[in-house]
């Protein structure tokens, strides 16, 4: 990492940290959503970008985290303990699932992970005594002002995003990152040269699961009401992929850039074409896949800059 880059990150983070000073709850809500999207995208990126496995199951961990934290909170645990419980649940589930699913590759892996969220949603729907079923779960509201709540959840989600980013950086610059890179390029060859591919894949999958379940836990407390169709929505599995594609898969910064760019687009589309929202989203996906397959970070803005300077 070059020094200018590090400086850029710090300035960017500093701007975000001072964001509550603006006193605008709409901006705070956007920033919280952006942080959440960034966490989900980085979570996806560890498996989907670094290891190149087509993961379609972020929603499963997100929803599991949301429900674990909501259930813990409604049985009287304080909020931080509830979040911890959610992360532990998500991580345990990821370890368990990783042992089973990571034997699959390609299409089979994609479909199996896609289906996990559906199974969890149906189970959540059915287990009414614990989860409230289709009625959803209401969480007790904090006796705080809306502004204080907005600031609290912004810092929670932003903190999670920073932590996730730091962990991803460490992973990318370490043995694990190298191993995952090898797996993406040629898993059989990686196996032959002595990389314990199964172990590294499970580590990646577990990291992904814990990031996503932490985001889900905070999301549940933030919105105060969750229901199965909301938190297990397939869009929570697909949006991270789109954001990663938008920003550049398999890079460390890509997911963050992608999340912010995507949110900007999403918000623009919501405001202007409410009824066509999903259709426009679909159109964006198609355009992105056909014309910008390596993401925004592959565009050479610096070249543009130099070109302008010389003329």
């Amino acid at each position: 990492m070059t020094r200018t880059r590090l400086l850029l990150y710090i300035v960017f983070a500093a701007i975000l940290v001072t964001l509550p000073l603006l006193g605008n709850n709409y901006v705070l809500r956007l920033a919280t959503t952006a942080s959440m999207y960034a966490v989900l995208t980085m979570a996806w990126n560890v498996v989907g970008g670094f290891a190149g496995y087509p993961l379609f199951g972020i929603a499963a961990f997100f929803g599991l985290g949301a429900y674990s934290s909501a259930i813990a909170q409604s049985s009287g645990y304080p909020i931080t303990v509830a979040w911890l419980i959610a992360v532990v649940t998500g991580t345990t589930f990821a370890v368990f699932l990783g042992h089973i699913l990571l034997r699959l590759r390609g299409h089979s892996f994609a479909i199996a992970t896609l289906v996990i969220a559906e199974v969890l949603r149906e189970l959540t729907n059915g287990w009414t005594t614990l989860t409230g079923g289709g009625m959803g779960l209401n969480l007790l509201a904090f006796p705080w002002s809306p502004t204080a709540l907005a600031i609290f959840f912004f810092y929670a989600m932003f903190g999670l995003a920073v932590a996730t980013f730091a962990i991803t950086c460490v992973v990318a610059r370490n043995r694990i990152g190298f191993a995952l890179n090898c797996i993406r390029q040629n898993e059989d060859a990686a196996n032959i040269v002595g990389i314990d591919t199964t172990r590294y894949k499970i580590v990646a999958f577990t990291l992904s699961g814990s990031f996503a379940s932490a985001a889900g836990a905070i999301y549940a407390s933030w919105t105060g009401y969750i229901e199965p169709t909301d938190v297990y929505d397939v869009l929570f599995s697909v949006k991270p992929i789109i954001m990663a594609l938008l920003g550049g898969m398999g890079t460390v910064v890509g997911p963050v850039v992608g999340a912010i760019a995507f949110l900007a687009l999403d918000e623009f589309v919501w405001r202007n074409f409410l009824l066509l929202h999903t259709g426009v989203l679909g159109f964006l996906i198609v355009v992105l896949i056909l014309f910008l397959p390596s993401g925004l970070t592959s565009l050479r803005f610096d070249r543009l800059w130099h070109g302008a300077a010389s003329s």
Partner: protein
Amino acid sequence: MIFFQYFVNGLILGGLYACIAAGFSLVWGVLSIINLLHGSLIVAGFYIAYFSYTLLGIHPFLSVVTSAVPLGGLSYIVQYGIINRVVAGSVLVTLILTFGLELMANNAMLISFSADYKKIILTHPLGVIHFGTLFIPLDRAASTLIAFFLILSLWLILRLTSMGRAIVAIRFDRQAALLMGIDVDKTYATTFALGGALAGAAGSLLSVSFPVAPLSGPLFLSKAFVICVLGGVGSISGAAIGGLAFGLLESFGAVLFGSEYALTLAFVVLIALLLARPHGLLGVKGF
């Protein structure tokens, strides 16, 4: 015996499911893409049948043709113009692309047809026949028979026509097929069109049995996933047998576990099969 009733119900359901899955399986097998648009094409087929019946009085079984042809054509254009550009890409790219197309199609249908569930209620239903305590709803049984006729036609097309042989050849070895002078792009588009036509036909057939809304696509799609893996990806006979097996699974599963867990049961079976028998229950490869 109530057992036989469930068995017959399962088989009748299974025929429709086979039809839903056959085109999906063909596309997955030959193009090696998971076509998430398939569910939307089924729903579009339903709406063609629905409006043909309510506005023009055309029986849904006749709409099989009028929904298969335009949806097949549309599929050809979508494959030739859009998907072919990235068809050799990774699983991720093709899956996300068809997801984007699905979002567009669903949004368009949601705006045009509203979010309500609709179902065709025939003014002259064929009724029910009784064999002792066993009874068979004739409209559903007829749609199942037509479904099997369609699957058989697809199988014959793949066996007997030169276009069909080209499709099979590409499935076995794309490079060799290319070297033998087969136009891979056009054959891909034709395969996708066959899949789309079958989806449209399936949509018309199930209009007499199921209520459908613009966002029902994913439900049909998830069933197609399971059937495909049950029967073996890319195999037409596998899709037929997988469809029947899935119909039985759903019929008996609803009795044993309650119908709210039908989908969960199906998905658990799916994951178990992916892990234990990735080539399908029958282990059929090819056609």
